[in-house]
């Protein structure tokens, strides 16, 4: 070993402080992140505290946001939509994740591929599919009108229902993956022991699987909520003008109303919402892990 160290000591360039030169390759990536991320973020946050016309430092933009019924309604719709998506995703992901974690059938691979590959298709393709299905003249409404069950088309798109369906579809694979990790971590011997001792399937699920997979449930709820709350394309296409959320309202503010400080306020509020949820979520998850793995 000592010979290697002497050799490398000889090779070190003497005219540069050794420690600093080791950081040089970091310069290009850090400069890019600085110019394209840190400075824009800093400017945006700064802009949100400035008056649009005079440029004076002020909190007025924030006061305006929280006094504006339209904005508060948008915030409420964002929260409602994300909460519903989180619930739908977790409820639907659970059986799939449980099957993937426990099944030994040869269908397992097929189910896994079917559950995860839609992610490659991108949001546009899937949203297009849902629009074709849910539209006023779409597949479901045509079928129901043709069969005589309804005379007016059911409102399935351009509202909450459409957006929740579309976003559930987009976020579902992530819910499945986070629940899968959690359920795979449960010792299958616990279930076997309960079975030998005469527990029914229902009580095994109720008393063993569900309680031990709580961390997975929490992380699925969290990831689904944050992905839904910050999604843009699905609410824009399936909600449209009929169901505006913060993400689509920010876009309008930047490109149509051109009120930049106010757009900055909306973006900062969305960011703070996400960071708060991520922070609380990390705390809850850490506590649950401590409780379950003492």
């Amino acid at each position, binding site marked *: 070993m000592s010979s290697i160290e002497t050799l490398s000591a000889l090779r070190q360039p003497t005219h540069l402080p050794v420690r600093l030169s*080791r950081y040089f390759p970091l310069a290009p990536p850090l400069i890019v992140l600085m110019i394209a991320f840190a400075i824009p973020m800093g400017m945006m946050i700064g802009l949100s505290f400035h008056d649009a016309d005079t440029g004076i430092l002020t909190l007025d933009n924030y006061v305006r946001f929280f006094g504006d019924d339209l904005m508060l309604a948008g915030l409420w719709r964002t929260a409602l939509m994300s909460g519903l998506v989180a619930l739908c995703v977790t409820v639907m992901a659970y059986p799939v994740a449980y099957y993937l974690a426990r099944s030994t059938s040869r269908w397992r691979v097929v189910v896994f591929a079917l559950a995860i590959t839609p992610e490659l298709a991108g949001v546009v393709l899937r949203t297009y599919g849902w629009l074709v299905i849910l539209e006023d003249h779409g597949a479901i409404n*045509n079928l129901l009108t043709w069969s005589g069950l309804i005379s007016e088309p059911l409102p399935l798109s351009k509202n909450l229902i459409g957006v929740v369906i579309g976003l559930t579809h987009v976020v579902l694979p992530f819910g499945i993956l986070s629940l899968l990790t959690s359920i795979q971590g449960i010792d299958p011997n616990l279930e076997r022991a309960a079975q030998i001792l005469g527990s029914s399937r229902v009580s095994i699920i109720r008393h063993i699987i569900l309680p031990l997979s709580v961390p997975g449930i929490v992380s699925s709820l969290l990831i689904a909520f944050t992905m839904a709350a910050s999604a843009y394309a699905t609410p824009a296409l399936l909600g449209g003008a009929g169901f505006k959320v913060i993400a689509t309202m920010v876009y309008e503010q930047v490109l149509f109303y051109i009120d930049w400080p106010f757009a900055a306020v909306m973006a900062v509020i*969305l960011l703070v919402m996400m960071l708060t949820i991520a922070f609380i979520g990390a705390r809850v998850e850490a506590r649950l892990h401590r409780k379950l793995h003492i």
Partner: protein
Amino acid sequence: MDRFLSIFFQLSLILILAFIALPILVVFAASVSPTATITFDPSQWTLRWFAALTASRWLDPFLLSLKLAAVVTVLSGLLGLLAAYVVAYRKCPGHEAIMALLVSPLAVPQIVKGVAIVLFLSSAGFYALLGTPGLIMAHIVLTLPFVVRMIAGAMYNFDKRLDQAARILGATSFQRIRFILLPIIKPGLFSGMTFAFILSFNNIPLSVFLVRPGETTLPITVINHMEYSLDPVLAAVNVASLAFILAAILLFERIGGFSAQIHGGSK
């Protein structure tokens, strides 16, 4: 009771999988249906919507998306290599903090990053950078954290004794990087770059702020059309771009050979 539960479980599983597959099947059927009304009757299927894709209104956005994704993939790969080299291979003092800094853009929703970058370019007077240069910048911010993470993952596993052996045998540092480090981290590098390619090619929330008339990416062109009508040609665009993504993944896989790493579960 157990019997009932098992049937209920299987039924719900089938319904959920049908829910996942449904919109995708619908798009495939729409792309080959002769009219806007979807048909599942193969005898009526036609490829005429695909023939319409060579028109410049679809070809130009596709080429822009392709060039953008290619540039972003290469730049992200290079920048990611540099960053991961210092952080994960040399493990410089403070490497954990630097890693956290490098992946910090992940904590910010894409739409917020998009607003920040468009406000920065517009209010700092860099209007000229809106369009392709802005798109490249924004997409690199999006993809770099993932690429750094994947390359760093490969470098953390790197057995330092290989490098020491080469050093004892008199290899220069260029030779050690070229013949030892790079081949070993190649799967990590290519899985990161594949991921970057898909993210950039499909991106909406960042691109939507930065495209300009005449410089519009494919997904943005498609959603702009979708707001007015559900023209079946859009279904064909979607299917074709999915086929393209899959082909790109296969190509990257052939060069980089990362599937072994994914299936083998790198630890």
